[in-house]
């Protein structure tokens, strides 16, 4: 027994040597604890049912508002929602008093905007809820989902605008009450500009530290370039409105990044955790979706103002549908990247560089002494997928003379060493003789 143990030990050392020749720059595998989540079982929590939690929050509106005001992103959404809703209410009451139909439909449109904002706000709040029995990994994905919903809605809205514009080219509509329309769209423009500035303000700090980390590490080029250009949108937006929407579209598609050798991933894995956390916050699909929504509204107001001015100057009613067409195309083009990135996050697929690292790590697992084979390796990205961390499960078959507990620890150590931030791994160790039926 003791002999065989010694033997395994030496084999282990040997494989470490050979593996270090194939994989360069690997930090020494640390046996880190796997449980970063609360280790208590979810069932012991009292408020683990999400509906219960939400109900308790709704019963105490003060608490809900406090939660919203506690974080910078939810605060900006909440304040803008209040502003938007107030404006909508004023407009609605005025439209009732003045018997204005145009104002009425505009206020209903704003009500739908408020609903979209509310969805984003709820997503932002829910994303911070702890894991529960119903949602064992927390609700981190809810922001991607909200971004996806907003992207889909924007695509649908742009299609609707196109249809309406075509119809109006077919049957031109004479616009009545021009001054009223102009005043309302100007006020709407101001409100939306305030929203854009508010969202921009929340992003500036992160964007700065973000570009900083970009210069250091090249491991996550996709997310970085994406969110860098995202913050670029915000910065350029103050100067000029209509141009900035081109920027999100100019980001490279997710799938087209080069495979980056894992060495750079490893070299900067340790000391950039906080910056990556910030990068993760910056690359928020929920905020991105809301921002695009507000941007679309702003463009709508600008379009109305410009087209009304042109129509009254030239007397041709076709400017209005033309502006609508132009704006809807812009909205569509800016929404598609959002839909793609959030869908990728929800599909739980790995990036090519993660696949590269993972294949390496699995090769490494196979060399652990006592391991006969493994099956069912499933590893998926955590959260919104931009932090690069993975979670996973794997079944390992061991030879009969090996100690399952020792093998389990070694496998865990190797996986944790190779996959930086492999947070909670589940490793089932079976005896090979028991597996074969």
């Amino acid at each position: 027994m003791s002999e065989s143990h010694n033997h395994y030990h030496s084999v282990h050392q040997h494989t470490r040597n050979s593996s270090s020749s194939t994989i360069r720059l690997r930090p020494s595998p640390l046996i880190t604890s796997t449980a970063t989540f609360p280790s208590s079982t979810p069932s012991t929590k009292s408020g683990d049912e999400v509906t219960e939690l939400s109900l308790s929050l709704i019963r105490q509106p003060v608490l809900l508002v406090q939660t919203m005001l506690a974080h910078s992103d939810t605060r900006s959404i909440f304040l803008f929602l209040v502003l938007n809703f107030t404006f909508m209410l004023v407009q609605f009451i005025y439209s009732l008093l003045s018997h204005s139909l145009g104002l009425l439909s505009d206020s209903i449109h704003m009500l739908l905007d408020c609903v979209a904002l509310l969805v984003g706000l709820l997503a932002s709040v829910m994303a911070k809820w702890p894991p529960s029995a119903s949602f064992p990994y927390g609700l981190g994905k809810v922001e991607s989902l909200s971004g996806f919903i907003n992207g889909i809605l924007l695509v649908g809205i742009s299609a609707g605008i196109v249809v309406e514009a075509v119809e109006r080219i077919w049957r031109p509509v004479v616009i009545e009450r021009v001054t009223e329309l102009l005043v309302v769209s100007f006020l709407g423009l101001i409100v939306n500009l305030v929203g854009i500035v508010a969202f921009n303000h929340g992003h500036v700090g992160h964007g700065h530290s973000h570009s900083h980390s970009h210069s250091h590490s090249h491991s996550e080029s996709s997310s970085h370039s994406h969110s860098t250009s995202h913050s670029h949108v915000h910065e350029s937006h103050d100067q000029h409105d209509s141009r900035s929407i081109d920027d999100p579209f100019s980001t490279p598609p997710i799938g087209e990044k080069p495979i980056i050798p894992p060495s750079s991933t490893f070299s900067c894995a340790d000391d950039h955790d906080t910056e990556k956390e910030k990068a993760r916050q910056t690359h928020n699909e929920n905020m991105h979706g809301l921002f695009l929504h507000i941007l679309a509204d702003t463009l709508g107001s600008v379009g109305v103002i410009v087209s009304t001015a042109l129509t009254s100057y030239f007397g041709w009613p076709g400017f209005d549908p033309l502006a609508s067409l132009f704006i809807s195309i812009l909205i569509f083009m800016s929404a598609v990247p959002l839909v793609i990135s959030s869908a990728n996050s929800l599909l739980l697929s790995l990036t090519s560089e993660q696949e590269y690292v993972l294949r390496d790590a699995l090769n490494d697992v196979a060399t652990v002494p006592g391991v006969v084979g493994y099956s069912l390796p499933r590893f998926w990205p955590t959260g919104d997928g931009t932090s690069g961390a993975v979670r996973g499960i794997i079944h390992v078959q061991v030879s009969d003379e090996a100690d399952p507990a020792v093998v389990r620890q070694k496998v865990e150590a190797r996986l944790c060493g190779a996959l930086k931030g492999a947070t909670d791994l589940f490793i089932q160790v079976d005896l090979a003789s028991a597996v074969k039926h």
Partner: protein
Amino acid sequence: MKLGGGSGIVTENATEENEQSLPGDSTLPCSASPVKVPRKPFNFQSTVASRSPVNKPNQRRGHKYKHSSVSMNFFLEPPPRPPPVLPAHFPVPTYKDAIQSMSRDQKIQLGWCSLHFLIGLQLWLISYESTVLMAISHIIFYDAFAATMSVLVDVLSNFEVWKNSSIRHPFGLQRAEILAGFASTVGLLFMGIDIGSHLCENFMKHAITESAPHDHESERFYARGTPIVIILAVMATVVSSIVFKNHERIGTAVQFSYIRKFKYGLNNPLYLTTVCSCVVILSLPFWASEPWYSTIDSMLAVVIAFAMCFVGWMTALTLGRMLLMGFNGNCARMILEEIQGDSDVKSVEESRMWQVHYGLCIINIKLRLQGSVVDETSVRANVNRIIGDVLKANLGAVAMTDSKSPGFATSVNGSMTVNAVKVRGKTGIQWESTIDIDRS
């Protein structure tokens, strides 16, 4: 020291492969370019006497010279095993691949789907005054989308990447179906809200202007060809729901206990509303007079908008739960309680249970055993039995599809941990359990 030979073989192999690849590379440009390269005096090919698999460092045990009569073998040679197979990389099919792989039937089905779309479009075009027809046309768009999706899933499930796990796509691409369903459901919900707001707006406009609500009665309320298009729409809805079961595909979430016993699509409120309101509109001339058309139209539209929102909301909740990696909390709690009741189990350290897509649950449990227990296999078997029992008892709690659903019958990777609950001819749900036993 003894084992140094193993690593030597590995590195030698690596260098030899590099050397072998070099001449191959250099010959290619030689033939292409006119510049003559001086001939090498020798053209030795480096040969490998024996190529052993790379990842078998512990195969050569004991003495270096295994068959030497001088030494003794202290350790028995382990039985040869194949090198561990890495999960394959499956290419994602391109548009062209998908088209080429389609069978004739599938092409016909896709054609029918586009016809379904066209019928909806026609209905939408003639629904100038009627909100009901507009709402129905929206539902038909949704139906047509669902039917198209079921054909596409049928086509895509012939590809390996769809249903098999790979490193890149750990759960295949089946979640794409959930995602597409969710997108269309969000669309349905949005259209329902849109129609509702439209109705509100109309109502308030009439209230503001205080004009007679029936001011467009002078012309015909419904366009000329309306009855034919409506009949076509009903036919399209019925055919699609029978052939493609598109309602079941998306609307599995909306199976209520009290209408589940109905068959032929009657268990779906959306389907029911569409057909019923079509029948009502067709029968209008027989029992209502023209001035009432607008009012009846608005009332029907309210019902349809409500049904759209209701179905959309319920479906979005179920699909969204899957997309958010959720699970039925009660099921999870029951499983955990029963496991903790096992006498061999000291405590449940961690548990993560979630549903990936219609057909697969992932159940991960980290256990701590009582110190004396040796047999982990029986503990695992017991836990698996508990999971199976709980899932079988709560089949309604997890969304599932019909057994006819493509890409569903195959087990994943042929592993022993893929289990399935089968009830009443329906392949209910498969689950994969990973039971991590911590003995430290």
